């Protein structure tokens, strides 16, 4: 952190005394170490991931790295099957996010732009479903998937994710769609456009910012899920990354470079989503909570 250049020139010019400059210095003196402390766990795990097994065994897990090796990553990907797990997670996440947002946007469109009776009650009931503790659903969901014959399939995981997420996304999109001015839609109605056309050609394109925010959020939620995967999956080849990681940890008990590599591989996709869509991601978090 460049503490010396902390205060921007404009501030200094405006007030000739040293007050703001010194306050800026104190600010960075407090924040820089705190931020480093926050980042440190990630840096240490990365360091372990890139060390060789021999280095860790000889010098201890907490020692500064004296080796650089990709063995951890290659073992995690080959023997730990982390690659396959990442692919499973990608399938579930992509289909899950698209399907949830599509269904949620349909429901939100119906509730926000039409005189559906008891629309408020329906909306809040749907949102309430999303707020329920998942624990109350686990056992029945597991037995329902078994009786439908879809237990232990990625399809079951996708369906469960869609069902459980719907309420929240519908609620957020409803708020957004209601803010579209009536005039925009009335013009289309006069032109004789039907509901499907209005939805696809006008409402959905206007909702792009909200959809982007929710997509960034939903991607991390579905990708990061553990409990639903544990509930509906049993076969190792179908596990998403979170479950595969816990297995990896059991299988490579003292190979900390392998475990750390697996954890890093699992963290990369969501970190990429975060850095690529930071603004969308943050507004997605707010859109639900700030209501």
């Amino acid at each position, binding site marked *: 952190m460049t503490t010396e*250049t*902390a*205060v*921007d020139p404009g501030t200094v010019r405006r007030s000739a005394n040293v007050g703001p400059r010194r306050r*800026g210095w104190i600010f960075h003196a407090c*924040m820089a170490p705190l931020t480093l402390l926050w980042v440190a766990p990630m840096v240490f*795990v990365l360091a*372990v991931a890139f060390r060789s097994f021999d280095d860790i065994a000889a010098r*201890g*897990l*907490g020692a500064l790295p004296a080796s650089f090796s990709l063995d951890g990553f290659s073992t995690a990907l080959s023997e730990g099957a982390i690659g396959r797990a990442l692919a499973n997670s990608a399938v579930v996440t992509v289909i899950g996010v698209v399907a949830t947002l599509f269904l*949620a946007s*349909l*429901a939100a469109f*119906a509730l926000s732009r039409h*005189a559906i*009776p008891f629309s408020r009650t*329906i909306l*809040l009931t*749907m949102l*309430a479903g999303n*707020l*329920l*503790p998942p*624990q109350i*659903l*686990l*056992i*029945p969901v597991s037995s*329902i998937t078994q009786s439908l014959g879809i237990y232990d399939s990625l399809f079951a995981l996708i369906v*469960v994710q*869609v*069902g459980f997420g*719907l*309420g929240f996304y*519908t609620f957020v999109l409803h*708020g957004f769609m*209601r*803010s579209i001015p009536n005039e925009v839609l009335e013009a289309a109605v006069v032109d004789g456009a039907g*509901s499907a056309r209005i*939805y696809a050609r006008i409402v959905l394109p206007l909702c792009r910012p909200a959809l982007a925010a929710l997509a960034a959020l939903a991607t991390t939620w579905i990708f*990061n899920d*553990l*409990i639903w995967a544990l509930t509906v999956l049993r076969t190792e080849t179908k596990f998403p990354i*979170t479950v595969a990681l*816990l297995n990896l*940890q059991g299988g490579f008990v003292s190979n*900390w470079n392998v*475990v*750390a590599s697996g*954890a890093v591989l*699992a*963290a990369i996709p*969501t970190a990429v989503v*975060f850095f690529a869509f930071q603004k969308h991601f*943050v*507004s997605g*978090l707010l859109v639900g909570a*700030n*209501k």
Partner: protein
Amino acid sequence: MSSTQVATPETSSHDGRQPVRAGRRWRRVPPLVWVFLLVPLAVELAWVFWPALNSFSLSLTKWNGVGAAEPVGLDNYRRMFDDPIVRTAVTNTVIWIVVFGGLSVLIGLGLAVALNRPRRGVGLYRSAIYLPMVFALAVTGLFWRVLYQPGGTVNSALENIGLDGVARQWLADPDTALYAVLVAAIWRQVGYIMVLYLAGLKGCDPSLEEAAAVDGASAWQRFRYVVFPQLRGVNTVVFAITVIDSLRTFDIVWAMTRGGPYNSSQLLSTYMFEQGFTALNLGYSSALAVVIFVLAIGFIITYLVRATRED
């Protein structure tokens, strides 16, 4: 967020004429729009509300997943009172709500106040503190498992600053396991709480604080008596979210300790899962799930009331 602000003028006109036209417009809802609504609604009813109801009836039975469930009335609930692990799990859940909620709110609010005004470096600091919240709880748990290992970073760091005596097997010691998991969970949660408070602070009226400053109020007084009262809405949301999240907490405990050692870090949610999916006591497990639901419902309603009021 932006949606609520834009929505206000439109809402009033919409609500204003709805009573008059309701009857006529009801009939005008095209069949296709009903399909738009009913398909998602059916999915949620089938995969959320129907299973939830099932949990209630299952909680009154004894069932191992095979054959028919045997009705036992309220036995599962009575059994909880004699189950020492339930007592530990309830205590731990309360500790979790208080410590996890308290510390993540204190640190998150503090950081939000510190990083509220734009100045050089703020973006970098914010990103660094947000970053952990995008990792899966299971990944966070694994990160910290690596750090907590005997000879790992945490112990080495303690030894380096001369605290050799404090170093221990954090996750294998029943006295520290729960708190070791809590540290990891708070590390991940602070960024989220900070986002919420940053938005709340943005909504505060800066002229009020300036007026107080002119009147000679100290920085602390300005925060306590001018800014903090304006954050009441955010506080309610944060409070409700924290309790709901705490009651759901499962992944990070499962990834780090599985409730052990000797059930010392067991939460209601992990004990419920263990009873249901390891011990196959499906009735008892459902009863535990119902207890979690009952504890959460008040806070869910708080959140919903808040959601409607601003709408």
